[in-house]
């Protein structure tokens, strides 16, 4: 049986074996939304203004060219909705879904049904222009036109297993969506969320686990960050902030009211909170404001092998976002020099660190403007630049991605531009 579209059976009359009209098909109920081919459980029929009656899928013989049942009207088995079904016409058709494979938000123009083995199943969502034309009753003329022009007809059908239905109010479906969307790259999730209307986007983002949520927030524009954080329970918000890089967390907190900042910092673990507090003291567009305090750092006087052992034990090195360079400090905390991780790994384990350390470093001040940092990073092809104070004490590093934000903001501008 070739696939059938929901729009082809919607509002069509349903006939029993005696040739008697049972009603009009108004909706299709599907169960087990998480499956690749969710099974159709029943058709919802309406006859006049009555409340809908249901026909179980097993008693449906044909859907095309007309909907024929396999029994007579009197021997239809009763069906009561269980509450976990998806009503295709009411809940999916015309709504936004996430195309997980294409990583984008699309609108459902039609739904594709087919017999898979014994059962009638939902197999795909039509998001293409052909689906729109079909709904307008112009599929056939359009097809004729496209074949006359020898052009490919604009079809786009997404297999159901790549679909994440979005309904904020429904926990079951949200779980399916979370499983499918949670695997995407955080930057893609952030783009999807900003494509959705605010409430659905917020529900989706809040359903993610702490770590994915933290990564997604880092990629999101600041107004969305604030909205999501305000919506979370304070305890959860603190957990999420701990998962974020201290520089990103500080940026986010800086947009919140004083009272909320204090409250959230108290709820965070002391170590994470201290790092964020230090960063909050500097202006947002200075080196101090965009630096991270989690970086790989070893004391002077070690050999290369000892330094690697030291890094494995070091918590700050574990948290380092990228670990491009390893910094060497004196006991007082003054920056002595740096070497690339590559050099550290490639040299003999008993080489003294001082032999491979570069001591003539490009550094920036805590108050260096972000734009100047970006220019330095670009001029010297650096992956990160250390931030020191007047005494040469090492406070943090600015990584290349945070520096170039001055030129190319990560924030997604998908919404209606704000004019005022």
């Amino acid at each position, binding site marked *: 049986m070739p696939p059938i579209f929901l729009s082809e059976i919607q509002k069509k009359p349903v006939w029993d074996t005696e040739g008697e009209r049972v009603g009009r098909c108004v909706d299709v109920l599907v169960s087990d939304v998480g499956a690749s081919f969710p099974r159709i459980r029943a058709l919802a029929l309406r006859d006049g203004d009555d409340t809908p009656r249901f026909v179980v899928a097993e008693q449906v013989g044909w859907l095309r060219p007309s909907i024929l049942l396999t029994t007579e009207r009197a021997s239809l088995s009763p069906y009561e909705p269980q509450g976990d079904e998806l009503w295709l016409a009411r809940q999916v058709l*015309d709504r936004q879904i996430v195309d997980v494979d294409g990583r*984008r938000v699309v609108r*459902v*123009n039609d739904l594709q049904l087919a017999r898979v083995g014994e059962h009638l199943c939902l197999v795909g969502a039509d998001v293409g222009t052909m689906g729109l034309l079909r709904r307008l009753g112009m599929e056939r003329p359009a097809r004729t036109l496209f074949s006359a022009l020898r052009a490919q007809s604009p079809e786009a059908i997404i297999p159901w297993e790549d679909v994440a239905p979005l309904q904020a109010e429904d926990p079951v479906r949200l779980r399916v969506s979370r499983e499918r969307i949670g695997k995407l790259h955080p930057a893609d999730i952030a783009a999807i969320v900003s*494509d959705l*209307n*605010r*409430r659905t986007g917020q529900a989706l983002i809040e359903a993610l686990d702490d770590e994915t949520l933290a990564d997604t927030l880092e990629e999101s524009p600041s107004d969305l960050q604030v909205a999501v954080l305000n919506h979370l329970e304070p305890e959860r918000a603190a957990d999420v902030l701990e998962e974020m890089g201290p520089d990103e967390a500080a940026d986010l907190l800086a947009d919140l009211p004083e009272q909320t900042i204090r409250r959230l910092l108290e709820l965070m673990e002391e170590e994470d909170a201290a790092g964020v507090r230090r960063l909050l003291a500097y202006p947002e567009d200075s080196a101090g404001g965009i630096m991270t305090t989690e970086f790989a750092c070893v004391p002077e006087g070690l050999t290369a092998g000892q330094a690697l052992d030291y890094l494995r034990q070091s918590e700050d090195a574990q948290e380092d976002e990228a670990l491009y360079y390893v910094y060497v400090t004196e006991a007082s905390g003054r920056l002595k020099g740096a070497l690339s991780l590559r050099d550290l790994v490639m040299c003999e384990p008993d080489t003294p660190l001082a032999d491979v350390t570069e001591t003539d470093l490009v550094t920036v001040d805590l108050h260096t403007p972000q734009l100047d940092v970006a220019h330095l990073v670009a001029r010297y092809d650096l992956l990160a630049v250390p931030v020191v104070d007047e005494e040469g004490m090492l406070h943090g590093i600015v990584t290349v991605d945070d520096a170039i934000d001055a030129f190319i903001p990560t924030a997604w501008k*998908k919404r209606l*531009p704000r004019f005022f």
Partner: protein
Amino acid sequence: MTLRDSIRRAIQRAIVYLAIIGPGLITASADNDAPGIATYSIAGSTYGYTFLWLILVITVGEVVVQEMAARMGATTGKGLADLIRERFGVRVTTLAMLCLLLANFGTTVAQFAGIAAGMELLGISRYLAVPIAALLVWLLVTRESYSRVEKFLLFLSLFSLSYVVCAFIVRPPWDVVLHQAVVPSFRFETGYVLALLATVGTTVTPWGCVYLQASIVDKGVTPQQYRYTRLDVVTGATFGNVISAFIVICTAATLFVHGTHVETAEQAALALAPLAGPGAKYLFSVGLLGASLLAASVLPLSTTYAVCEAFGWERGIDNRRQEAPVFYGLYTGLVMLSAAVVLLPGVPLFPLMWLSQALNAVLLPVLLVLMLRLANDRHLMGEYRNRRVGNVLAWGMTGLIVLITVILFAVSLSQTGANL
């Protein structure tokens, strides 16, 4: 509660209000854009104070309609196009979007006509001014530093306040003004009915509703904060219409009494002569330019957003052109085509400005009916659905527009018949 507590609460409330206020005031001050000024000038100069009662009626109408749009935005978190698609399906959406496109295309043409008229007053050819303006507007989609430009334009459009000052200088017969404001009058003449429709269509606009709802969704206003938004919308609409009334009063007191029927921008500018003397020309042209550029940059973009939202096409200015072909195509088409119409040799600018507003009014009922059905949807709006008073007023307004449209056709038919 101590005095200090109540002061603190009052301050907190004021802060919340300031954070939420905006969309309503802006949408309403856009009433007095180029086509608005043209329409009110024509009405005042041709028919004296007889349109004042209509402005009183449509102030109520605008408050009701805008409030409805704002409430839907705050309650559902979705744009109007989004809601229409999800509730009414593809066919109705296509009809509604065609109406919106046509109305907004007409209004965009009117804005470019306003730019042309303003520039020609300054002695600059429209063949130079309009292409440059179109290019500037079109570039907005790729630039993000326009918010400051926008504030400047908004400031320029404050020039409409000068009509208020001017009216007090001229000292119109206030008793006549008051009398005409409360006693409806009507004439069965094509020109009169057209001017009536244009006045309605420039005040309650399809794009105003769509834009207002979109900005409220975008601001993330929640149902709990909605009462502040309602205040914003109501004061904004009232304020905008008070100014409209003063434009009518001012043109009636300066031009109508001398038998000048405005047909060009030069004549319309004369209404400000009592205030600015020989500088009236410049005051008028700069104000017209500011208002037109402002509206010309908001209109095509918000229209394109709505249409793409309804059909699920990729949208947003961070998508590169290949990823969002329909978005860019539609946007470019709207801007370029509107500008091109104004450049057609021999096109009279003033009629272009106000006749497009009559078209607006004819198309408005389609959207109003859909909005009313959505705002009454128990499932969608819950406790925030329309009250009876609002329904009666909104349906009354829809009926009034349809009635005037029917009268227009009847009158023009009978007049053509009489001429034969």
